[in-house]
């Protein structure tokens, strides 16, 4: 296809991506270099029968004016990245000096907002993904065995958790595990502890969120594995049966190696998607004990008084950096594939 034809065919799609995916990344970066105008303070003297007092107040009008004049705020360089809510170099250094052993130091660092979110995001990613792969594989194997007549129905039921949006999915589960919901109340009865609630402790909330993540992602792994199972070559299977291999041996030595590339595909997609976890945190109202990187950005943008564009921008850039690191293996794989194709 000549360059010119290609250009016109691709132009609308390319334009949309450049304008609304490429540019915002730069815009985010640009914002992260700026900081919101500070509030302008004035001293006000208030007098009452008991005498006069001077107090410092926010001059709303002047602040609004300053913000209207220069909405992006003043240039701040990389300072936002270094502040307490992001990489917090100062605090980390302080923690290093003031603590004697490594675990105390880690405890201190992981209490800083950014590192706390990073820890949750990574924990979520790396605990959900392996479980999803194993569970998805098992479900695929057992659905594959079913009779044709009920397969369609079972597949439909299986993929339901995946097709609802994470917010709705997490709400549906949240209403059940609520201490007044069916599961929450049952658990209280089983453990005979009327105060036991999945929301009450940090550990339990994290586990709940991870279970939700598994529930939501397993159908995807199932569907992909199921499709992969259909392509398993039959000849080696026949040969294995004749040689007297048991079912588990066949799965281990023929099916698994065949599905290995499929598993890596699922792993990477899962990691990528779970790295942006944030809707379940809202659905489970878990903001107090579990924050993710995406949730931090959301919080900055949802700020009641003033949107913290600078702070959101800086977190965004750090998140994108994280995605980049996760994505490197995929890129290398695609590059190799492309080379062998030529």
């Amino acid at each position, binding site marked *: 296809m000549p360059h010119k034809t290609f250009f016109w065919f691709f132009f609308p799609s390319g334009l949309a991506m450049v304008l609304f995916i*490429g540019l915002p990344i730069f815009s985010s970066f640009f*914002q992260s270099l700026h900081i919101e105008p500070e509030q302008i303070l004035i001293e006000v003297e208030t007098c009452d029968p008991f005498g006069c007092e001077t107090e410092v107040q926010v001059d709303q009008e002047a602040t609004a004016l300053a913000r209207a004049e220069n909405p992006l705020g003043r240039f701040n360089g990389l300072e936002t990245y270094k502040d307490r809510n992001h990489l917090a170099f100062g605090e980390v250094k302080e923690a290093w000096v003031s603590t004697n052993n490594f675990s105390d130091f880690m405890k201190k660092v992981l209490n800083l907002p950014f590192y706390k979110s990073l820890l949750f995001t990574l924990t979520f990613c790396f605990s959900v993904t392996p479980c999803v792969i194993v569970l998805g594989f098992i479900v695929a194997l057992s659905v594959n065995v079913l009779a044709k007549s009920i397969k369609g129905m079972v597949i439909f039921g299986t993929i*339901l958790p995946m097709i609802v949006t994470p917010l709705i999915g997490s709400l549906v589960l949240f209403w059940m595990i609520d201490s007044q919901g069916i599961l929450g109340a049952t658990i209280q009865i089983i453990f005979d502890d009327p105060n036991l609630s999945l929301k009450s402790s940090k550990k339990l909330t994290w586990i709940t969120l991870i279970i939700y993540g598994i529930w939501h992602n397993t159908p995807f792994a199932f569907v992909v594995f199921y499709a992969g199972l259909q392509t398993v070559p039959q000849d080696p299977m026949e040969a294995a049966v004749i040689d007297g291999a048991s079912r588990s041996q066949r799965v281990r030595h023929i099916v698994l190696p065949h599905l290995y590339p499929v598993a890596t595909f699922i792993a990477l997609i899962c990691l990528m998607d779970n790295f942006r976890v944030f809707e379940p945190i809202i659905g489970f109202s878990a903001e107090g004990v579990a924050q993710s990187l995406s949730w931090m950005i959301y919080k900055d943008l949802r700020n009641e008084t003033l949107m913290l564009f600078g702070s959101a921008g800086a977190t965004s*850039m750090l998140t994108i950096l994280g995605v980049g690191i996760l994505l490197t293996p995929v890129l290398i794989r695609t590059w190799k594939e492309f080379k062998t194709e030529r």
Partner: protein
Amino acid sequence: MESKVNKYSKQLIIINSIFIIFWLTISVFPFLWTLWGSLKVKADFFSRADWYYAISGFNTLIETGRNFTLNGYIESWTEGEFGRAALNTIIVTISVVSISLFLGTLGAYALSRSTYKYTFWILIAALIFRAMPHITLVSGYLFPFFQFGVWGILPTTIIVLVAINQPFTLWLLYSFFKTVPKELDESALIDGCSYFQAFRFIIMPVMWPGVITAGLFSLMLAYNDFTVTALLLNQENYTMVPKINAYLGTVEYGGNYMWAVASVVSATAPLFMIVMFFQRQLISGLTAGAVKG
């Protein structure tokens, strides 16, 4: 050939059936339970005293005089203005699906038929774009959108969703176009068709399965989106998902839980029906990327 490979012992079949029933319970029951609960009053669905009330409908009987009530639905659709949100969702979904299919088929066709190296780099760029968390993009949009005064309205959100959706649509349709033999459009070109005519009259008619799959994924993205719609739309223009979130926590609606429960059911039911109808296409789309790799 029905061979020994597909013979299963009785034991295996029993274990397998138990597992499947267990699994289906996990994946389906929460939705059935929510549907059931949406027909009760709050005191039953979130019953402090005894969760068995949720089944017997004890308080529902006292409060409304019947075992089931449609109050949650009626109130959320009238007072809660859920109808407005539903209409917005329909507008957004239809626009996003049609625009992104239009752009996506053109772009993916070009990518699949060009032999130059830059197509590879474009696909890689699309892959990177696909991985971007949506919220990082939104943080980049908000400021310029405020400045240009286009924040809060539906068209902006539609265009943004189309763009966010493009990388995946391109990859998906690209792999579908690759399966259509090149000779088909080459012969059309020799007969004097332009590239666009070959695309429109020769290739598109055989591409329907792929287009439906891609359309279904665009539909799910647009219908389900929370990140973009919650931050880029103002309250009046909210689509269904941010509206449900608004029922839960804001002062305006006073955390009206049963509205949220009823609207969750109202929002989920159409999606399930669509998916039931197009299930096969959905699965072929999910596997398009994997089976080759």
